[in-house]
């Protein structure tokens, strides 16, 4: 794929659209009644590896804002910002992965998942609850629990969906080496 600032602009736009659609419509019922599993962070992590930290931050930030808008409950800035922080941090943490060149080996899987684990922990274990307490003066223990449940669910979905996406993308790149027809 070609690289140019315009590609990044478009990637952010399409990424945010995908983030929105996944977050708003692709609801996988979770074991806890009335809650759904957020798949959009898997997508966000995948696109961040491809397009870098700025794209990652903006995809999550814009996508999350649009989701909040569409539910009509106002904009939950604390969580929106946490989403953006995840994209940004993960962008830096995953810089070594050369997915754009079609490389995603065992080492990269490990690197990808350690990075996403750490970044999610910072976003949902630190940024979101702190902002929640600061902005809304909600009780700390409630906020931490809420964020932690959300964070763990995001870690799990990123691990599965994100990893599968990266693997699929790497394999979808035109194969190197020669393939032989079998009789």
């Amino acid at each position, binding site marked *: 794929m*070609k690289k*140019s600032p315009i590609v990044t602009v478009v990637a952010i736009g399409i990424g945010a659209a995908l983030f929105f659609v996944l977050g708003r419509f692709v609801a996988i019922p979770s074991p806890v009644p009335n809650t759904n599993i957020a798949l959009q962070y898997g997508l966000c992590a995948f696109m961040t590896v491809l397009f870098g930290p700025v794209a990652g931050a903006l995809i999550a930030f814009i996508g999350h804002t649009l989701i909040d808008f569409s539910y009509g409950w106002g904009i939950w800035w604390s969580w929106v910002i946490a989403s953006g922080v995840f994209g940004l941090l993960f962008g830096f943490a995953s810089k070594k992965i050369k997915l754009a060149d079609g490389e995603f080996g065992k080492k990269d899987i490990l690197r990808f998942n350690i990075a996403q684990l750490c970044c999610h922990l910072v976003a949902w274990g630190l940024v979101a609850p702190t902002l929640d307490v600061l902005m809304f003066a909600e009780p700390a223990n409630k906020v931490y629990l809420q964020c932690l449940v959300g964070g763990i669910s995001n870690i799990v979905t990123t691990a599965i969906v994100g990893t599968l996406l990266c*693997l*699929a993308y790497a*394999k*979808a*790149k*035109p*194969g190197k080496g020669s*393939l032989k*027809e*079998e*009789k």
Partner: protein
Amino acid sequence: MNDPIIRFEHFSFQYHAQAEPTLHDVCLSVRKGEKLLICGPSGCGKSTLAHCINGLIPFSYKGEIGGSLTIAGRESRELGIFEISRTVGTVLQDTDGQFVGLTVAEDIAFALENDCVGEPELHERVRTAAALVGVEDHLSHAPGELSGGQKQRVSLAGILVDDVEVLLFDEPLANLDPATGKQAIELIDEIQKETGAAVIIIEHRLEDVLHRHVDRVVLMNGGRILADTTPDELLAGELLRENGIREPLYITALKYAGVSVTADKRPDHIETIELSEEDQARVRAWFQSVPPAPEKPETPVLLAAEGVRFAYPNGREALAGLSLAVREGELSAVVGTNGAGKSTFCKLLCGFETQQEGTLRFAGQDMAELSIKERADRIGYVMQNPNQMISQTMIFDEVALGLRTRGVPEEEIRRRVEETLKVCGLWPFRSWPVSALSFGQKKRVTIAAILVLEPQIIILDEPTAGQDYRHYTEIMEFLLALNRRGVTVLMVTHDMHLMLEYAGRAIVFSGGRLIADAPCAEILTDETVIRRASLKETSLYTLAQRCGIDDGQAFVQRFIDYEREAVRT
């Protein structure tokens, strides 16, 4: 004569990632006010040539350039892509991709916005450009509210807001129904007369582009220019056929009839071609010599719709009392304009939506009780874009997916998948990743993934979209072979050649109803049906008239039978 606005001199190009040059020794010049058609099979280099003209090469796609390309007298690689875009305006094939504004007006304004054009000039120029292509009444519409033809008009307006000197169209007919395609070619012609710009059309549907006059046709293959001449010269020779480009049907018919097609007969248009008394007599003689194909015995009804009504939640009535029957072993085309109800009908069959009234029967059984999964065991549905269906990385797994989700034992899966791969000609690639396949091969994989469930009917949405003649033939021969093995095939399509050459009959939708269900030769010579379904009269019919054959429909039928019997086998 004015100076060429675009001039390639011994130009070559090699992408960085590729081992071989994509363009070799290209010499080509285009003057202002000229109209050029560039054709060639897939991979011949015509898209790369287009990228060179509009500046995507070398500014977005990097590679090695040899020779020289000047645009308006200046060497292209010394200009920037933005400077080139002031001279060359491009209308891309993917109208949804090119439509980047939220509304028609904003999309037309896009280039001006980037040039920081302010009020009131901005609104003024948008209105003018919109009026030029006839979308001035839709300025506040979102892309979702427009038809494919309208989107293309908006794309054209979007480049006409700047006074470009070259208009470049990349496969302008690919996503349009026949009647809309005809209008597009007429519009391009009018715009050229109005603006005096040079027009370059890249398209492999030769006959449709030649609907209006073209100055020169450039034929490419293997990265080289094989011919750069008038349409008349090219049609008279054998180069087109040798390079996998389909000739206009009337030319093919004339050649079958033994009429010699020479450039001085001006064969570029069915209305103007000079046919001597002797030529006409030959065509008549050929018509009478071909025996009519034996009629096929009638088979039992497999699929029936009775009074089916369906309206979407937004109130749009998509099917208004549809009744039709599909018989076992048929290979039929489903045609009609966008919004006529074709895709809604497919969705109802597959169980994605449920009709409000009426019944659908499969082999006499009411389908209401069947789940999506159960229907899929009987009716297979193949989407237009294989990339939207393929979810596994290995071919074997992709084909096996439907069986695995049905809990079939792995032993049996192996047997059935292998058998299907053999039927589909994918056996040599069984251990390849899907990504190593061409577009046409991927299409086969998606068909294989459906076939493995052993449905009695498969429905294909535009099975040959975006394929050149060779790949088109490959896919269609494959479907024909499946059909001979007893699979009933329904093809939703805009492609009139496909109808004529392969479909036994055509089921025509209009306004949510069935308006015709008859052999294709009958449909394509029936004026009312043609108009209502946005089809186009076949040039064979005109040829028949010009040769004094009264029964044009029979002539078209003879042509189809002859192709099937004499040529293909």
